[in-house]
């Protein structure tokens, strides 16, 4: 059964996209798994890492997927299709055609800012309930299950309908967090969402909390003290990951336009950033595939 890993927290800038990117690269480059990346964040940074996203002329700040390579062929079957496919289409009753990426085993169902923002803004309870379950239905499709070993979902910094839909579809959840007061409040918000879903979930398909991933850690008292305190706290301490990601400029360098075809996992084995990312990803991998 395809594993569905979600990086989520309702605080922005805590490392959801970074974790998703690292995992997408690790799982395809190191573990040779077939991965589908899904971007539910209207900022579309996860999509932009693997796809040349375009600026939406209608939504000035928004991004939209490029014309799909199969557009010409597909148009013959579906003449009404505009050639852009995004994960947001599932909320509009349309099918999704994932894009290939420069990584052989990685496909992506990118975000589409305008459409995702619309789905996120849904308030009417019946429609919201549909949004909540739509992603689960999409991922449960046998064709998709057949095609991918893992689905990775990046979420928006919120607890809105899109994040709820990701949590409802997930088999595993990882909560990246900085060791700062507001971020730790964000952990609480996300744990509430996890609890709500875990209590309702069929026991044969549990929602497992992989853990809290300490991110952007610096060698300062604030980070050390908060991390120690969180690790020592009852129950929650067991879920704070032993490995952490330090604050490094290398991640931003990889995000630069010129570098988008490279990966931290293609660096030398001795590179400290690679080593650190490997440890974190190894830990997550073992949690998701304990028998591998």
């Amino acid at each position, binding site marked *: 059964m395809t594993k569905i890993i979600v990086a989520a927290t309702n605080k922005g800038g805590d490392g959801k996209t970074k974790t998703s990117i690292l995992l997408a690269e690790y799982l395809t480059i190191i573990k040779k798994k077939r991965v589908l990346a899904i971007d539910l964040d209207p900022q579309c940074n996860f999509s932009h890492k693997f796809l040349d996203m375009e600026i939406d002329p209608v939504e000035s700040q928004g991004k939209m997927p490029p014309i799909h390579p199969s557009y010409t062929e597909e148009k013959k079957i579906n003449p009404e299709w505009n050639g852009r496919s995004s994960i947001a289409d599932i909320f509009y009753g349309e099918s999704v055609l994932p894009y290939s990426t420069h990584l052989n085993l990685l496909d992506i169902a990118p975000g589409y800012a305008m459409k995702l923002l619309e789905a996120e803004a849904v308030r009417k309870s019946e429609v919201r309930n549909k949004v909540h379950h739509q992603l689960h239905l999409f991922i449960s499709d046998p064709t998709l299950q057949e095609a991918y070993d893992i689905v990775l979902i990046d979420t928006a910094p919120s607890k809105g309908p899109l994040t709820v839909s990701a949590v409802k579809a997930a088999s595993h959840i990882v909560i990246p967090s900085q060791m700062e*007061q507001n971020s*730790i*409040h964000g*952990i*609480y918000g996300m*744990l*509430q969402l*996890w*609890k709500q879903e*875990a*209590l*309702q*979930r*069929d*026991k*044969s398909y*549990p929602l497992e*909390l992989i853990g809290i991933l300490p991110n952007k850690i610096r060698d300062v*008292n*604030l980070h050390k*003290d*908060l991390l120690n*305190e*969180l690790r020592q*706290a*009852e*129950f*929650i301490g*067991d*879920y704070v990951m032993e490995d952490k990601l330090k604050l490094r400029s290398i991640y931003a360098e990889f995000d630069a336009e010129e570098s988008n075809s490279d990966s931290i996992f293609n660096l030398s084995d001795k590179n400290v950033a690679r080593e650190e990312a490997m440890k974190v990803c190894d830990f997550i991998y073992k949690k998701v595939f304990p028998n591998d």
Partner: protein
Amino acid sequence: MTKRKKFGISKTLTNSLSQTVKVASNNMGVLRHEIVPIDLIELDPCNPRTFLIQKDDIISGLEHNDYLYDKKRREIDSLESLKNSIIKQGILNPVWIYKYKTHYRLIMGERRVLASLLAGNSDIHAKVLESRPLDTSLRLLQWMENLERSDLTLWERITNINLIIEAQQKETPDLKVNATFIKNLLGCSLPHAMNYFAVVFCSQDLRDSIQGGKINNLEKAALLANINDKDVFKEVYTLCISGASLKHLQAMIRTKKLKSHTNSVLRGNVSKGANFKTINLGFCKSSDVIKKITDILLKDNLCAEHANCFENLDWRNNSEISKAFKSFIAKLEVQK
């Protein structure tokens, strides 16, 4: 030298984080609720509460040539108020179901399922369990559910208790079933549990009468179950099924017992209480009387041998007199 700054997470936040993780980890799946098509729910054939009407009777309507038509009609009528409440407010408590092959089987909520169909609903709010609960839990759940119902017959109640006991005995073969066990099991008072205990293990004749609906009152059934005398049983039973009140039956049994006691006294074979193993010689307030008795006794040769028990005795001290007499009797018993 500057002092090192110390940072921490507030106690409230730490506690909230810990509690959230604890609650979630300990209760995975317990709130699994779904809206399930009623088509996929099968009523539990082993539930001791047996409605005559089935889902099909409501979906397709009752057939006039059905020999149970009148009874089924009454059952449908009894669901009317629940049906109206469902139309107005929906199901207040979800029914409980578990996965059974390709569909679901009902644990609790037979009336709600049937009334929902009557209300025209095709699906129902349900708590879904992954598998069939253990026999004991299942029967206890059904018992609790059934207790809510005023129309539950005595036979249905004792069948339910029997099923719970059987399930418990399967799990614990050495289980001792008594009234206290039933009290703990059902959470009822001991007298009530004693009544259940008597009826659950009553004679076949009485069971048949309960099953046939001739006796539907627990206290009356327990009263009959506790009668050992066949003739008395027959008389009280006849009175019971002719509609006599519990008080009337109790009065009759008291009369019968009194009569039987009087007969025994007249026959001279009455014997009350346990047999004494020792003889109480009674109490006496006057030491003079005791001294008189002692003097008489000591005139007897056998008793005289133990006269030393009373030597130098202070006949004004009751305690000393008692001790001396005890010692005297003890020596006589040894001598014997």
